[in-house]
């Protein structure tokens, strides 16, 4: 560092101009023979001429002669001579000798030039890098009274620089700051700034550094190569210590190599020109050497930074990482984007794209993130980041339950290059694992099974292996392949007795046994599970399922085994106890609700209505705000109705509808509406029913029009109360307006599904089905959506899809009273597929379900006739058509009977039994159930045609 030396040089020159000395005259060279006055005069003359070497002998002579004298006047002369001798020695370059003289000078009084002497000592010490001594000298200088501003400035400079060189970072900052503040010299200021910033970095005084950095950025000090290297080194160290903020501050100081070299080269040119100019006018050799040294130092730094490997991208990358870490996502994003765009195939480019996408995900800029991922995968499937990017996109979509998107990425996953790298293999294992869940989410459990099997077979080292065994069982379970599932869960338990899903696997086995209708085995497993994992996450469900098993037992003696007493009057009590436990151990609102309402069903079987009310109150108290209040109110009302408290129940229902009906997700409200309509229909007089309708209308006038969900529910309730015409009108108007389905709840959806089917509106059938399934999967009315979907598919002649929907619906609802349509459609579909031999038994199945008795029987019988007819079995067909009009003439206002008559007559014509045919038409005309229908006109025409024969 040349700052202090150069500055000191100026001071020396200044000193020489102002220093006076006693005037003596002398001429001789042999001073030992001369008097003191002559010697001094000679020295003075030489000094004035600038002959410092010549001045040394006379001055030395004076010092030698006067050294031991005690006379104050002579001592003063001695001290002056010492000071001038030291000055001359300095000038001739013999600084050590000069410093020796100055030491003697400073040890004796008087010291009129003490400040200058101290500065000269400091200069000497600078030459030998004796920072400790300089520190002492500078401190001594600063302690002197009445220092001039110039002296104070230089003393601080010396002290600051000495401390800096001695790496006393904290101590050097104050004197250097003084220097930076007070100096008028731009270069000195900058040099001080550089030293201060460096010292602050080394001292890790970040708070103060933050103040200095903007100041440094406003000067050329920012181009100092040493400063940049220091900042980079310190930033890297801090980065590795996770000190993000301070690392950021330092990294932001680092300029590009190009900028630093350009600036430094310009500086060399500037300094060289100045030196050349000064050399022409004359410049002391010492100064010239200093300048050359400075230029050399810059050259050396340029060389040093040129030799460094490229650092700019790494710095930018780290800054980006820090920004990301400090939640400054967008700043990180633009840096990563630049790095990646400039060198997409480089190592750092590959790292940047990962960070870039990660940042976009953190910002929830999903479209941008996916665009980047897909664009990378399209262009660089063999790129270093391909698998990781794929993993990110799959993970994000999995978390969002967007299985279809995950599955859409399989083509990329399958084209990833093969690898032997352990990390890459591990990522690939993860990809298959996620792909398995993607398929799981889309309901393609077979494809999911395939992916889990790939992990088991091809990725034995994968961390996902144990889970894959478990989920393999789940894929079987979801496809109702219960025995396979039981086996898979068994394998998991055997292989991973400490596995995360060990207890889950046991529970699932119980569920699967239930699926196999092996209730006794299931019960055993649930009991084992409850005893082994009394606080497990599935314990509530285990209690509920065991309760379901108990509740399903009839408790009666089996007549087939009269010698064995199977009678068990306690079975329902045990079921209730299990449900109560299930409520108490529930970890989710759904678990508690299931148990509570199943228990209510059991009480209902036993007509224990007060118990139902008590149970619901217990449930409401237990779950508080998590309780399904509407469902609970439904059960309380139901119990009240059964106990004859009709008005109380109606009031409670109405109150619950108004209170919770605005929430689409309160499905219990829909059950209440159902029950309310049923009560109104069967328990109220016509007059009371009308009064209730008026009351409903009045209530609706008080409701804010923005409460659309509640208003729609009440409108549907009112329409259901008023009858089919009102229901159809309401549904039809809603569908015509194509209103948003966001406000629609299951009871309304059911109405809309039925209206859409009645009006053959296939577009709405599809839309309603999608919405219903997506939003109210557990609704009791979901079957109406399946029905709508089946009709939509039937209209499109997509027979395979129809049979799949029917199968799914029947799998869910079996032969419940409202499911007869499914079997009819099944028959119709098979018929359309010309599979008459399969269609006939399908129709026949309808006849075997007592709950479907009614018009469906007539339709099924007629369907069987159609099958026979299609097979040219006219006799058989005639029999079924005849049965249709004989057995079911009253159903559907005689519609099926009319069809039966006409079809039966047609069969008779085919059998060449015209008379019987005419008789059939005549019977039809005379039959009171059908003779008002339009179909009779056909019969009359046929009689006209064949009657005379």
């Amino acid at each position, binding site marked *: 560092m040349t700052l202090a030396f150069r500055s000191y040089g100026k001071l020396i020159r200044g000193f020489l101009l102002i220093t006076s000395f006693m005037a003596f005259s002398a001429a001789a060279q042999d001073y030992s023979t001369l008097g003191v006055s002559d010697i001094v005069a000679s020295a003075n003359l030489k000094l004035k001429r600038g002959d410092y070497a010549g001045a040394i002998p006379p001055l030395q002579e004076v010092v030698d002669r006067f050294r031991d004298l005690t006379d104050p006047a002579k001592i003063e002369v001695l001290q002056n001579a010492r000071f001038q001798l030291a000055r001359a020695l300095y000038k001739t370059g013999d600084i050590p000798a000069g410093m020796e003289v100055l030491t003697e000078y400073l040890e004796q009084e008087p010291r009129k030039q003490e400040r200058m002497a101290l500065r000269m000592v400091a200069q000497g010490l600078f030459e030998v890098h004796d920072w400790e001594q300089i520190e002492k000298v500078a401190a001594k200088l600063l302690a002197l009274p009445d220092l001039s501003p110039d002296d104070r400035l230089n003393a601080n400079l010396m002290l600051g620089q000495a401390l800096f060189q001695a790496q006393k970072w904290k101590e050097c900052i104050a004197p250097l700051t003084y220097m930076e503040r007070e100096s008028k010299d731009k270069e000195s200021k900058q040099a001080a700034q550089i030293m201060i910033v460096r010292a602050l970095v080394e001292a890790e005084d970040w708070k103060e550094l*933050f103040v200095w950095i*903007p100041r440094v*950025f406003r000067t050329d000090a920012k181009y100092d190569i040493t400063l940049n290297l220091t900042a980079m080194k310190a930033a890297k160290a801090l980065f590795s210590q996770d000190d993000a903020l301070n690392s950021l501050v330092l990294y*932001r*100081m680092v300029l590009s190599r190009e900028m630093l070299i350009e600036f430094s080269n310009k500086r060399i040119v500037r300094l060289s020109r100045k030196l050349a100019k000064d050399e022409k006018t004359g410049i002391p050799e010492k100064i010239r050497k200093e300048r050359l040294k400075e230029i050399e130092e810059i050259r050396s730094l340029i060389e040093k930074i040129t030799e460094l490997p490229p650092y700019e991208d790494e710095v930018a990358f780290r800054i980006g990482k820090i920004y990301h870490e*400090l939640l*400054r996502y*967008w700043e990180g994003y*633009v840096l990563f984007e*630049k790095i990646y765009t400039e060198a997409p195939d480089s190592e750092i480019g590959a790292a940047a794209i990962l960070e870039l996408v990660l940042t976009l995900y953190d910002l929830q800029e999903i479209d941008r993130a996916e665009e980047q991922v897909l664009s990378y995968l399209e262009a660089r499937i063999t790129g270093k980041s391909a698998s990781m990017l794929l993993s990110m996109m799959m993970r994000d979509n999995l978390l969002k339950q967007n299985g279809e998107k995950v599955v859409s990425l399989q083509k990329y996953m399958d084209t990833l290059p093969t690898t032997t790298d352990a990390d890459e293999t591990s990522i690939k294992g993860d990809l298959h694992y996620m792909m398995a869940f993607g398929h799981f989410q889309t309901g393609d459990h077979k494809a999911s099974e395939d992916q889990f099997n790939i992990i088991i077979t091809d990725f034995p080292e994968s961390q996902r292996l144990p889970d894959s065994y478990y989920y393999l069982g789940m894929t079987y379970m979801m496809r109702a392949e219960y025995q396979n599932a039981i086996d898979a869960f068994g394998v998991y338990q055997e292989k991973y007795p400490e596995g995360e899903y060990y207890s889950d696997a046991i529970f699932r086995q119980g569920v699967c046994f239930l699926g196999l209708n092996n209730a006794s085995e299931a019960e055993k497993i649930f009991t084992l599970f409850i005893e082994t994992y009394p606080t497990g996450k599935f314990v509530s469900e285990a209690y509920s399922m065991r309760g379901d098993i108990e509740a399903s037992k009839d408790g009666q003696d089996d007549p087939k085994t009269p010698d064995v007493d199977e009678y068990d009057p306690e079975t329902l009590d045990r079921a209730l106890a299990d449900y109560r436990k299930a409520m108490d151990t529930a970890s989710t609102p759904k678990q508690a609700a299931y148990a509570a309402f199943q228990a209510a069903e059991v009480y209902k079987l036993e007509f224990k209505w007060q118990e139902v009310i008590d149970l619901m109150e217990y449930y409401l108290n237990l779950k508080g705000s998590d309780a399904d209040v509407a469902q609970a109110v439904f059960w309380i009302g139901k119990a009240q109705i059964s106990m004859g408290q009709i008005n109380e129940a109606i009031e409670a229902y109405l109150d619950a509808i108004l209170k919770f009906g605005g929430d689409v997700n309160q499905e219990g409200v829909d059950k209440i509406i159902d029950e309310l309509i049923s009560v109104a229909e069967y328990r109220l007089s016509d007059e009371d029913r009308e009064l209730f309708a008026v009351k409903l209308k009045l209530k609706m006038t008080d409701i804010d029009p923005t409460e659309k969900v509640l208003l729609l529910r009440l409108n549907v309730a009112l329409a259901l109360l008023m009858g089919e015409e009102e229901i159809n009108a309401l549904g039809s108007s809603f569908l015509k307006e194509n209103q948003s389905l966001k406000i629609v709840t299951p009871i309304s959806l059911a109405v809309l599904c039925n209206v859409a089917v009645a009006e053959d509106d296939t577009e709405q059938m599809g839309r309603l089905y999608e919405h219903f399934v997506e939003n109210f999967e557990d609704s009791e009315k979901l079957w109406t959506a399946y029905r709508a979907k089946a009709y939509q598919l039937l209209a499109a002649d997509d027979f395979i899809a129809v049979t799949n929907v029917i199968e799914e619906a029947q799998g869910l609802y079996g032969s419940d009273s409202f499911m007869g349509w499914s079997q009819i459609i099944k028959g119709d579909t098979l018929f359309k597929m010309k599979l008459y031999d399969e269609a006939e038994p399908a129709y026949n199945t309808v006849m075997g379900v007592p709950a479907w008795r009614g018009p469906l029987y007539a339709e099924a019988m007629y369907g069987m006739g159609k099958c026979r007819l299609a097979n040219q079995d006219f006799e058989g067909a005639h029999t079924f058509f005849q049965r249709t009009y004989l057995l079911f003439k009253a159903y559907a206002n005689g519609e099926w009977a009319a069809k039966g008559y006409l079809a039966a007559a047609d069969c008779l014509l085919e059998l060449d039994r015209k008379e019987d045919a005419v008789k059939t038409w005549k019977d039809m005309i005379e039959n009171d159930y059908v003779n008002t229908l339009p179909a009779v006109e056909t019969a009359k025409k046929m009689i006209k045609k064949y009657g005379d024969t």
Partner: protein
Amino acid sequence: MNKVFLAGLLSGIFLMVGIAEAQPITVELKMGAKRSWRGQVISRDGEWIEFKIDNSPKPMRIGVEKVTELIFEVEIDTEKISKKLENREYDGVIAMLGRAIKPFAEYDDIPSNLTKYNALLMELYYRTWEYDKSLLISSKIAKDSRNPALQKKSRMYQVLALIDGGKVAEAEAFISEYGWDQNLADDTSPEKLYIAAKLLALKKQYSEAMLCVAKVIAFNSQDPDWMQPAEILCAEIYTELGLYDSAEEVCRQIELFYRDSPEFDAAVKLRVRIKKLRAE
């Protein structure tokens, strides 16, 4: 942006301390071909001024269009202004400057050394949300071609005042006129990016605005003139995007890095706003 200007101004013009008398006004009058005279302007008569050269017995009439510059002797306490600026007492500085240049108001349409004071006023009015006043001054300075750097700066203030004053259409037209909305890339100058970000934010296109301001910060971290205002704009946009944690982090960093700055004050205020937003 602002500090450089303030610092330059203070180190230069405030060195001039003189006595300004009510009438006549001491001035150095410059005309073409580097001609200049010291003297007093006695009065103004439309497009003419009456000017008396020192030691000349009689004043003469000079056409305003022939005057290239007037150098007035402005009486101002530079130390006090510096102190007030340091303490961010902008209203006080505005008042002081207003008083100092008031005697020369009659000549403020003629190029003069008052431009420097007006430039400071332009910036201070902007800082104190007096956008119309800032705009009035910046529009005048923008027409003065003597100092291209200052002219450029005044254009920046013009557009900033338009944006912050909510004049979207005018701001867009202005930006388009100078092509500042073209080719906004990573290496675009920070001032262009900053202005683009401000305009986009005003139009509530926050993601696009954030992209621009993020580039100022990411690629111009050694430019404190634009870095500091960009940082606070960035915090504001994070707030608008609902990324409160990010906004608070930027505020925290501003408070750490830029102590005693207008951005520090803005960050403190923004933190209070975020707190309220979180509570809503």
